[in-house]
């Protein structure tokens, strides 16, 4: 049984076919490395899964039940979380406030609901521990290293105990050491049975963590197979079109 199953997903923007007939399966606790040239349709695929775009055609199933997302919250409710490329953090708030942003823990004091900072600090400390990150809940994000910021963005996805985490180029603009930290975080997610879709241009990163590799070329899926059965050379060929399909 696959956690997420895409069948014949097609997405057109007017005359542009961003995705054509993409069928793909992801198992629970599997890391899928999604690769492809600029404009191949990677971000579009992630946005379809996350409920930002409705597919023009095709169907999605989660745990063997058909799903349809009209808005991002629908996907969120179904257990799909996204780490955005620029991480979407508020520098002026603490780590805990960022983890809970938009879904703050509250408690009643008389007639009003007040933010339950103690609960937010406790829970986010637990999430950071779970990610083996040294991020402290009370620290301002402004004062954090790139790796800690990544941990905050990823801890945010964990808050709702997600089934699938989508990451669109999380390692695009960070240092080598921070990349290693992010890859570690991805392994932690996988160990908890969470499926991860990782988009990245960096071949070594993808091969370091991915169980399965998928390559998109001009909107079509040209391969989807276990990473162990592929190689960076083959993937490069598939991305450029030197190899037609594998």
């Amino acid at each position, binding site marked *: 049984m696959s956690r997420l199953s895409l069948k014949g997903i097609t997405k057109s923007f007017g005359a542009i076919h961003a995705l054509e007939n993409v069928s793909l399966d992801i198992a629970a606790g599997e890391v899928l490395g999604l690769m492809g040239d600029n404009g191949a349709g990677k971000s579009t695929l992630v946005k379809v899964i996350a409920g930002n775009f409705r597919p023009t055609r095709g169907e999605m199933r989660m745990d063997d039940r058909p799903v349809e997302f009209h808005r991002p919250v629908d996907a969120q409710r179904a257990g799909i979380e996204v780490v*955005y490329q620029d991480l979407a953090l*508020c520098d002026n708030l603490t780590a805990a406030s960022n983890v809970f942003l938009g*879904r*703050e823990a509250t408690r009643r004091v008389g007639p009003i609901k007040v933010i339950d900072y*103690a609960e937010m600090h406790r829970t986010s400390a637990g999430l950071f521990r779970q990610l083996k990150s040294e991020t402290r809940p009370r620290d301002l994000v402004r004062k954090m290293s790139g790796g800690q910021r990544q941990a905050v963005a990823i801890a945010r996805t964990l808050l709702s105990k997600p089934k699938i985490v989508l990451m669109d180029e999380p390692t695009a603009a960070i240092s080598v050491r921070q990349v290693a930290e992010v890859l570690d975080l991805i392994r932690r997610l996988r160990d908890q049975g969470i499926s991860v879709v990782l988009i990245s241009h960096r071949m070594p990163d993808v091969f370091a963590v991915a169980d399965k590799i998928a390559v998109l070329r001009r909107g079509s899926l040209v391969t989807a197979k276990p990473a162990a059965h592929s190689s960076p050379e083959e993937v490069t060929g598939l991305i450029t079109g030197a190899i037609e399909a594998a």
Partner: protein
Amino acid sequence: MTSTLDQAIDQIQHRGTLSRMMSHQIFWVFAAAVLACLALTLMTDTFATERNLFNVSRNFAFVAIIAIGMTAVIASGGIDLSVGSVVVLSAMVISTMMESGNSFWLSAICALLVALAVGAINGTLIAYAGMPAFVVTLGMLSAARSAAMVLSNNKMIWEFGPDHDLLLWIGGGSTLGLPHPLYALIALTLVTGFVFRWTRWGQYLFAIGGNEQAATLTGIPVKRLKVTIYMFSAFTAGIAGILMAGWLGSVTTNLGQAMELTVIAAAVIGGANLAGGEGTATGAVVGALLIEVIRNSLILLGISTFWQGMFIGTFIVVAVGFDRVRHMRN
């Protein structure tokens, strides 16, 4: 409440009280205000009189009340240039209504509703039509004052009907030796300070000021919130308008003119970051206090009040410069 106490203790241990305090702009601004007061007490025998302190505390309360609303707007990444005009519009609504025989309370509620409507128009144009806050509220600065002129036919109003004395007492009277506007300020400071820190509305306001796009992505109703923020700012200006009408005992259409500049100065000196994401209610109050102390000291020291703008201008630049240095160190 034990958790907050634990938190407080934890935070103190985390950073050290003194270094924490000294890293806050409010601390320095407050220190400057206290120093100025001390110097004036020693240099003049007119400053520390009951009469003068009463006047200082009342005068600064009007600016401080609006500066709290302005801080909310600035912390969310916006600006509200229309507050001075909302002051006169609110004062004009209450005074024309009372003049024609309505009770204080009915007239005051109508004045506040008009102020809230002005804020709602500002907020809607900014949030939903995506127009720059500077432009929208600049337009409103002109429009709201014009509405006040139309309403009063540009005449001075100094007869407030059956509740005449009540209005004068509320704006100009005192209880237990403290002027009434100061009570309004204290209440507003406590409520706003609480709301900023402990409610979702406060949290979202700072989130929007910090990173509006992130706030939107996490599902915060950014547009709706922005409308309420401008309504809050206009509401504080409306309150100040009512109190000022009672204090002055007469309302003319130049009431609150150029007040937006003093208010923005107070908020910024008190630590509101014009780039968004930072600001506190107490900061706004302390900023307003410093401005009033400077103004008062110039008068008492016999220095031409034409110098006032120079001092306030310098303080704004110093406050923002201070902030830059602090951020660069981080």
